[in-house]
């Protein structure tokens, strides 16, 4: 059964269904229960944007509010995961990872390898990312390339409500640490979402739109910009194949290479900065594996190598959009 749900509620439903299925699933984060300590009010918030709202009412103390202390509570989630729980921890904004990076980079990501394959750390760390909200430099970053760089972490970028639900359920059931990144500008997006529980496997890209002329690989929210550009280009007779990798670690390089071998052209759309980025990584993979198929230079459509600006004029200039993608496609066709 399918019905329309927004991205935020799809995430909430995934959490709720998994908490009902497995009592080892617990939710930890700032305000995730909401209102604790404030005149006895409970469940007032559900996280700063309400993603976990209602879970406390259903699952009680398995939804745990924390002090503002990311190292302590994200580390606790990692430790609890290593001891048999399946915590889903909310870091709020991806930008805040700096204050607790050790627990993700040196602890969660390293346990299995460093301990000779004996440890499992099934923790999911959820966070908001991305621009478009005039959130400025400390509340708008993408930062997923940093996580994808680290062996041991898996990195998930859902682009629609249905993908968010299936990928989150997969993330919770996965036995590795997963970084689950939710674009703030997608929370209100509505889409068909099956009611039942389902998973979407990691490392399998989604071919959002088939085409023969240009391959566009787009990440997270950029999938929608790319789809919009592809629809517009189709009117001009240019057929773009739009690929959503869904997970950037593991990355489905096979689907990307196969597509480039068909189209001979590649545009990568990444809202993050271009240096040492996923856009750079994907283009590198194609240059190494499918160079002979390329009929022209690879184009990257990314934000510039600057922090995210605040002013609306500047942020609009900063962000990739459909017009920039169209221009990139036309430049290499």
């Amino acid at each position, binding site marked *: 059964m399918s019905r329309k749900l927004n991205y935020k509620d799809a995430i909430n439903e995934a959490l709720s269904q998994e908490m009902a299925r497995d009592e*080892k699933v*617990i939710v930890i984060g700032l305000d995730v229960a909401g209102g604790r300590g404030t005149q006895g009010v409970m469940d007032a918030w559900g996280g700063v944007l309400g993603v976990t709202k209602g879970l406390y009412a259903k699952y009680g103390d*398995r939804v*745990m509010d*924390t*002090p503002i*202390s990311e*190292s*302590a*509570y*994200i*580390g*606790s*989630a*990692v*430790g*609890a*995961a*290593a*001891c*048999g*729980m399946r*915590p889903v921890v909310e870091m709020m904004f991806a930008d805040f990872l700096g204050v607790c990076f*050790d*627990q993700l980079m*040196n*602890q969660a990501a390293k*346990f*299995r*390898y*460093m*301990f*000779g*394959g*004996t*440890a*499992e750390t099934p923790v999911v760390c959820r966070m908001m990312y991305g621009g478009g909200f005039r959130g400025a430099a400390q509340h708008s970053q993408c930062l997923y390339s940093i996580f994808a760089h680290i*062996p*041991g972490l*898996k990195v998930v970028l859902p682009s629609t409500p249905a993908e968010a639900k299936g990928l989150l359920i997969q993330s919770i059931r*996965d*036995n*590795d640490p997963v970084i689950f990144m939710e674009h703030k500008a997608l929370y209100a997006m509505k889409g068909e979402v099956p009611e039942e529980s389902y998973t979407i496997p990691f490392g399998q890209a989604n071919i959002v739109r088939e085409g023969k002329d240009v391959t566009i690989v787009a990440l997270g929210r950029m999938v929608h910009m790319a789809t919009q550009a592809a629809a517009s280009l189709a009117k001009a007779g240019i057929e773009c194949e739009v690929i959503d990798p869904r997970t950037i670690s*593991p990355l489905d390089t096979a689907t990307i290479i196969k597509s480039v071998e068909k189209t001979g052209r590649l545009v990568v759309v990444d809202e993050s900065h271009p240096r040492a980025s996923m856009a750079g990584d994907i283009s590198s993979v194609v240059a190494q594996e499918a160079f002979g198929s390329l009929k022209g230079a690879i184009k990257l459509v990314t934000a510039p190598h600057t922090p995210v600006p605040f002013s609306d004029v500047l942020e609009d200039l900063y962000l990739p959009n459909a017009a920039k993608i169209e221009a990139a496609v036309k430049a290499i066709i």
Partner: protein
Amino acid sequence: MTSQLKKEDLLRAYRTMREIREFEDRLHIEFATGKIPGFVHLYSGEEAVATGVCMHLTDEDRISSTHRGHGHCIAKGVDIHGMMAEIYGKKTGTCGGKGGSMHIADLEKGMMGANGIVGAGPPLICGAALAAKFKGNGGVGVAFFGDGASNQGTILESMNLASVWKLPVIFLNENNGYAESTGVSYNVPTPNIADRAAGFGMPGVTVDGNDFFAVYEAAGEAIRRARAGEGPTLLECKTQRYFGHFEGDAMTYRPNGESQNLRKTKDCLKIFAEKAIAAGLVTAAELEAIDKEVLALIEDSVVKALAAPKPTAADLLTGVYVSY
């Protein structure tokens, strides 16, 4: 001296301390041969702390350790042969040669890893304690950390979180006087690190970390509180390390003869033996017999570690992820 301890317990405690001492003193010699790769940080001198705490723990209880972790591993029951092989980077090591001295772990023994990051363990052990609380198995978590680490934000955050969540955690500070080369009197602006507990609403206790019995008593009370759901305790054990921050450290920051003097006056093994023999609970001969057995065990572990195979290229890519 504690009345709870029977003769067999005392002999076990002595054996554990002796194993740690011989393991460390032998590593000090072995490191000089150049056959041990990487960094090695020795625990020698602090044996009473790990032993006095871990005597109370079962395999269900979890500890997190530090870069100076060998003593905690041994006290928690990690196999000495596996540890020695791991330190030599061998395939037969506790972590298959992928961890080394600073990352020895044995989750089945409740040993969640020595840790190369100062202050990383307490958040993890809060998680372990949280898991124990959910499972309702009465398990506790003990986070060992040094005087240097006591200034890390992770530790202060974890003490707050453990108190807020009433977690069964013991924050076990091993104050050995030096954060790498910097003295504790410069680093910590209170007489005792345990003074900080008041700020987090938990008991703070300072004991002589060279006195096994003092550690055992205080740790026992903290662990009892934790198991009873009364929340965390900060326990500071004042002790010392005989060797440098790492092997190869010339210890130019320490007063001349400090280590030798401490060995004479503050040796936890000597203090233990004197007290236990004087109380008529064990005999010198019994302790000497243990000394001999332990020496043979450590010798055997070095011989086996040297002879053990190294990992192969096929091991390089395994264990990154669970599923592929």
